[in-house]
């Protein structure tokens, strides 16, 4: 059972209070009308699906209902932290750089 901290409520709760909402920070093609089918297909369907650290979105459905970012390890299920989408994005971009 994952224990996830909601950065909005500032509470650590069991995973059943939350809903998984997929990979975080997927970049939308800046001008969708100009993206070719392969680029658009990659944006809509293709995922990193890593064996290791993963930035993902969770929604606190049984609480504040807000969506936030979690960095979780997909093998050990260790959670490095959770952030609001805006705060997490800065860290995420720093890691990607």
């Amino acid at each position, binding site marked *: *059972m*994952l224990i996830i901290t909601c950065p909005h409520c500032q509470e650590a709760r069991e*995973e*059943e209070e939350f*809903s*998984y909402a*997929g990979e975080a920070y997927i970049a939308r093609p800046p001008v969708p009308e100009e993206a070719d*089918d*392969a680029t*658009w*297909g*990659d944006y*809509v*369907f*293709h*995922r*990193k*699906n*890593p*064996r290791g650290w*993963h930035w*993902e979105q969770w929604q606190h459905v049984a609480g504040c209902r807000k969506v936030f970012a979690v960095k*979780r390890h*997909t*093998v*050990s*299920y260790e959670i490095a932290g959770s952030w609001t989408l805006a705060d997490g994005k800065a860290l995420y971009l720093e890691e990607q750089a």
Partner: protein
Amino acid sequence: MANRYSLWSLIKNGLKHHESWQPAWKSPQPKKNYDVIIVGGGGHGLATAYYLAKEHGIKNVAVLEKGYLGGGNTARNTTIIRSNYLWDEAAHLYEHGLKLWEGLSQDLNFNVMFSQRGVMNVGHTLQDMRDIERRANANLLNGVDAVVMTPQEIKDMVPLIDISNRTRYPIMGASFQPRGGVARHDAVAWGFARGASELGVDIIEQCEVTGLIIEGGRIKGVNTSRGDIMADRVGCVAAGNSSVLAKMAGLRLPLESHPLQAFVSESMKPCIDTVVMSNAVHGYVSQSDKGELVIGAGIDSYTGYGQRGSPHVIEHTAAAIIEMFPSFSRVRMNRQWGGIVDVSPDACPIISKTRIKGLYFNCGWGTGGFKATPGSGNVFAHTIAHDDPHPLNRAFSLDRFATGHLIDEHGAAAVAH
């Protein structure tokens, strides 16, 4: 020379106190070069190697398995076999598999214990029943057997089921595929391994692929924990680890890996002689030849490679089974398993060439790959042998995620994902 199993060989070896049986498959050292390397020694990978050797005459083949045969999802699933899919492409692919199942024990000279005890998909709402009728009609138009049953007909076949209207989700009917059923999953891996080995395929266990050797957009071989092995063609059949392999080639796949659980009860007297599945309350159950209830449910919602599942999913599944079978409420569970399944956006597999020449992927079977084992191997072997898809898997290529020609089979997948 492998054993030929028959009544005569049983008597002969019996007279020698069963000490003269030969191993079912050889365990050779890897060679430096092969015509084809199959990455992944699960059912689909072994079937691919078997049909490459048998139907396409390509016998210089290696199957590389990081663990041991039958140690992964192949022998840890709920063993259900059916072909009652809605869309033509999927119905034809799974029906091809089901037809191969029907002759598999004879073909392999290995008893895979395929039992056509039927598969029942129960409906609990008016919408369920409309979907069931639509799917049964689609099945009949595709030459797949299908029957729509009333609650009383269900009760006659499965006396323990609760068809009263006192339940939270009353049973309103079901679809039934009489030719569906179950098979012994270990035997499927062992049978294909034995068949492939006999035809000259090298099955190499404890050999993990750590990298793909690609030069000028062509595959040249693989790096493994037992040294580099070269081949012009490499087929990846690694289920939950497909994205990891694809990344080694610089490819991205439309997949997410999730843990899927199954569990098995203590052995009991025969009490259910078909497979009962429910999409709405969300659980499925059959009884093994040993008398255990074999129970499965959905995936964990989040991605993971941890090979264990969440306890609340077990609770959810048990609740679904008890909703349909109240008398199972005090049955004790013996063991549980969480395997990693690769889920695609349209709940259909990907059997495809890639932009790397000679590199092929067979993945995305999600929660329902076991039923397709012989069919999947058969069409994937054709795809590798001809560098061109078999007509039955042409629609299952990677480019459908760019063209938008998805095959939406969430309704027939029986597991919510």
